[in-house]
């Protein structure tokens, strides 16, 4: 059943375009059936977890490499999976209202569900390599979704940036995974988690940790890799909601939480993870100040929230992890709501500039309600879910020391400001700049109300009754993260204590900041708040393009003869170097006991080779080459390789045919190369031929590994039911090689086809016109 849960999303992804063709604007409602069903299924797993039943399954993939299709659904996985499927369902419904019939929604849903399935794969994988595969699939679908509006250059650039940053981080992480697998002796996550001791004392521990942290930090937009996330807001809002707020960016958080049992506990972990997390938390909030675009506000506050999650994992105490799980869910709910509301505002008012928006509660009451609930939860107002989460985060930081609690307060304070700015101001306050509404603003369609209402409502409901979560998901997630049974009791109200007073202080200061927002904005506009590796990224990308351009111009000059010379000289140099290092070797015993017809064939081959080089016509040269080829094929025949000979005969015939067809279009044969160049060619040819001769002699006398032919001879009939060993090797023993070869062949064929047909099009009337246009355009 668990495997179905992961795979079914991929299935739906590929069916989505067809479903959209029939269901049109209603597709979102139909497509949401699966994620809703998945959410319910995940919920049914929760009671079992409490009694220690963890669904797990494993299929073999490659035993030798330690790879398995292993899936496991413990509390931590389910906490993330519920976010993925639950918000996925709402976003699917929302998107059909958001796009209407203006966009190719089939393609959108394809990648949306492709992402959902990949993300479920990430959180359920119990094998490091499998996790990595799904991890990269989420990067891929994120790339496709950010660049969904592919005709806009900014969208494409943002998509490539996100892919390059998270993709290269993923590769670094893969190296960490491989090392971790070698240290721990297994790639199975559940088995690795029991080996914390042996990993943390290993000399390579630090290397593993840093490599994996880079992967997690790039994905979860931690400083200094945070710059891709605000740019990713080029994506349509449903995508930003789902991938870049609620789920994908939390993959890094998931990974850290998952591995904290085996990698955590050291002081390096504490400072690297906790420190970077805290820095990200504050920097994200700080960078938000100069924004006016609602979505970019949310993007920076998401960075800040991801920072708090990472900080909690870095602190690593039971309270901190409890705070992490709670904050993860709370953030998914309120940030999801705010993003959806922002999309609705953008959809109805055609602007996302917070200065131009105001008083929308009248025209958009449902979205106003959802937005307000979410903003209050984000600000950490008592009785809301965000408050519960923040209380635990404060408590965890408070226990570590004054330094950490003050960082946590600053981070939260900035988020109170953002919450009011994004969630309250557009609805309940007048706009700063009066803009004439181009049309009467009205409420968004139902598909775009249901998401904010459900998520916003949950932000309140779960704040009032947090124990709904505490008993089930939070305790089982903590049990999984800490590796020991944990009982969690959550209450909406803890009474008046230090933490509560700090919460009130945060709230008060945040609202105070909000009150002076216009002054703050004026200051922020003067000092441009930019910090990040964005510039470095741009410079290195430019450098890469320049380098690629340079080496392409140098190497791909378009002269066939120089390509050939390059290839041949390189082969000769490498082979000669190898022979030199080998030290010559012994010549094998040469038998001069040859039959007259063997000698005859040899003479024919040599003569026709001379013919080919000396011929005064192309046809003559090709015919001579054909004769040489037939001679070689005859040798195969004489020495017992009829298969090879038969193929060679056919190839030689076809080559002649192809040459003749090609010559038909060439100008008359002429000697254009000067003598010097011809001498050079003779020299290269002689060297190559001579070296190859020596190589064949030496190679036939060397036997490094035992020969595998006896294996094929013995097993061809019993194992593969065939007596023709050559063919059995081709289609059975080395079938994979053959599959690769015919693929190469097919690509080569397509290449020839494309090259020739492209020229055809240029010469036809229509092609001529466009070619002229191109030429004209070049002149201007």
């Amino acid at each position: 059943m668990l495997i179905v849960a992961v795979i079914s999303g991929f299935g739906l992804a590929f069916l989505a375009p067809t479903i959209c063709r029939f269901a049109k604007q209603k597709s979102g409602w139909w497509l949401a059936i699966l994620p809703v069903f998945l959410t319910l299924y995940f919920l049914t797993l929760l009671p079992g977890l409490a009694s220690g039943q963890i669904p797990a399954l494993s299929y073999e993939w490659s035993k030798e490499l330690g790879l398995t299709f292993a899936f496991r659904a413990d509390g931590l996985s389910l906490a993330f999976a519920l976010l993925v499927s639950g918000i996925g369902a709402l976003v699917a419904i929302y998107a059909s209202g958001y796009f209407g019939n203006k966009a190719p929604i089939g393609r959108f849903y394809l990648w949306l569900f492709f992402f959902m399935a990949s993300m479920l794969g990430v959180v359920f994988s119990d094998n490091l390599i499998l996790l990595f595969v799904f991890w990269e699939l989420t990067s891929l679908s994120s790339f496709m979704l950010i660049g969904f509006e592919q005709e806009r250059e900014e969208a494409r650039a943002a998509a490539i940036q996100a892919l390059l940053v998270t993709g290269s981080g993923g590769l670094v992480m893969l190296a960490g995974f491989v090392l971790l697998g070698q240290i721990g002796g297994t790639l199975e996550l559940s088995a690795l988690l029991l080996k914390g001791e042996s990993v943390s004392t290993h000399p390579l521990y630090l290397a593993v940790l840093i490599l994996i942290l880079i992967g997690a930090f790039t994905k979860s937009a931690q400083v200094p890799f945070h710059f891709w996330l605000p740019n990713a807001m080029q994506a349509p809002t449903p995508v930003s909601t789902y991938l870049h707020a609620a789920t994908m960016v939390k993959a890094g958080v998931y990974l850290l939480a998952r591995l904290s049992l085996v990698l955590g506990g050291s002081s390096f972990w504490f400072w690297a993870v906790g420190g970077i997390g805290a820095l990200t938390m504050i920097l994200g909030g700080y960078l938000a100040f100069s924004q006016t675009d609602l979505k970019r506000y949310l993007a920076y506050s998401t960075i800040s929230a991801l920072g708090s999650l990472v900080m909690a994992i870095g602190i690593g105490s039971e309270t901190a992890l409890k705070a992490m799980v709670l904050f993860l869910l709370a953030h998914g709910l309120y940030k999801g709501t705010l993003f959806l509301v922002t999309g609705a505002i953008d959809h109805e008012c055609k602007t996302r500039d917070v200065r131009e928006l105001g008083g929308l509660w009248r025209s958009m009451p449902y979205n106003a309600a959802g937005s307000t609930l979410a903003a209050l939860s984000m600000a950490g107002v008592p009785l809301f879910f965000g408050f519960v989460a923040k209380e635990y985060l404060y408590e965890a930081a408070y226990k570590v020391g004054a330094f950490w609690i003050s960082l946590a307060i600053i981070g939260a304070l900035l988020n109170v400001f953002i919450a009011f700015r994004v969630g309250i101001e557009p609805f309940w306050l007048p706009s700063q700049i009066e803009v004439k509404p181009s049309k009467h603003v009205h409420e968004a369609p139902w598909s775009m109300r249901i998401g904010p209402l459900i998520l916003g409502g949950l932000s309140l409901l779960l704040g009032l009754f947090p124990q709904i979560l505490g008993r089930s998901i939070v305790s089982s997630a903590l049990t999984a993260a800490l590796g020991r049974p944990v009982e969690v009791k959550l209450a909406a109200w803890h009474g008046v204590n230090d933490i509560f007073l700090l919460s009130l202080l945060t709230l008060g200061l945040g609202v105070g900041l909000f009150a002076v927002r216009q002054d703050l904005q004026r200051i922020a506009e003067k000092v441009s708040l930019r910090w990040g590796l964005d510039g470095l990224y741009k410079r290195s990308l430019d450098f890469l393009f320049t380098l690629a351009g340079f080496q392409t111009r140098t190497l791909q000059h378009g002269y066939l003869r120089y390509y050939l010379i390059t290839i041949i000289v390189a082969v000769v140099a490498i082979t000669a170097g190898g022979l030199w290092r080998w030290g010559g070797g012994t010549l094998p015993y040469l038998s001069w006991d040859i039959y007259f017809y063997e000698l005859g064939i040899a003479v024919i081959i040599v003569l026709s080779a001379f013919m080919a080089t000396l011929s005064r016509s192309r046809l003559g040269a090709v015919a001579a080459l054909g004769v040489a080829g037939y001679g070689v094929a005859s040798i195969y025949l004489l020495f017992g390789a009829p298969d090879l000979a038969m193929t060679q005969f056919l190839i030689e015939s076809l080559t002649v045919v192809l040459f003749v067809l090609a010559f038909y279009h060439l100008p008359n044969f002429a000697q254009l190369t000067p003598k010097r160049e011809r001498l050079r060619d003779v020299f290269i040819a002689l060297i190559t031929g001579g070296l190859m001769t020596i190589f064949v002699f030496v190679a036939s006398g060397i036997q490094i590994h035992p020969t595998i032919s006896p294996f094929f001879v013995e097993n061809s009939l019993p194992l593969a039911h065939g007596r023709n060993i050559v063919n059995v090797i081709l289609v059975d023993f080395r079938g994979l090689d053959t599959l690769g070869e015919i693929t190469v062949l097919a690509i080569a064929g397509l290449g020839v086809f494309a090259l020739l047909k492209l020229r055809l099009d240029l010469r036809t009337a229509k092609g001529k016109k466009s070619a002229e246009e191109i030429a004209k355009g070049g002149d201007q």
Partner: protein
Amino acid sequence: MTSLILRTMVRLLLPLLLMFSVFLLLRGHNEPGGGFVGGLMAATGFALFSIAFGSETARRILRIDPLALIGVGLSLALLTGLITLGLNQPFLTGIWFKFPLGSFGKLELGTPLLFDLGVYLTVWGVTLTIVFALEEVK
């Protein structure tokens, strides 16, 4: 190229070459032959035909676009591998069925034959794609 001799010969040769190519494909597992050489043989037949009668006529009697042959061939070879994955065995494991044929002995058929058919179609398609494309350059 409108040589009467070539045209007459090709008309006779094409069916023979095609039959021979299938023969090569089928016997390949036990005797010299196989999908690769079979595909080349089939392509040679059509190459000759198109030299004699022009590529347009050759395309018409082939009925299928050589590009489609490539696609079908590759997919067939890949699917053969996937069948075995579905049976929880390594990719491209050969699966064999035996049919007793009374006094004729027995007939053994296996997935490698399907795979070889994929090779046959791919090679056939690629070669013809190149031959036709070269011929149609104006």
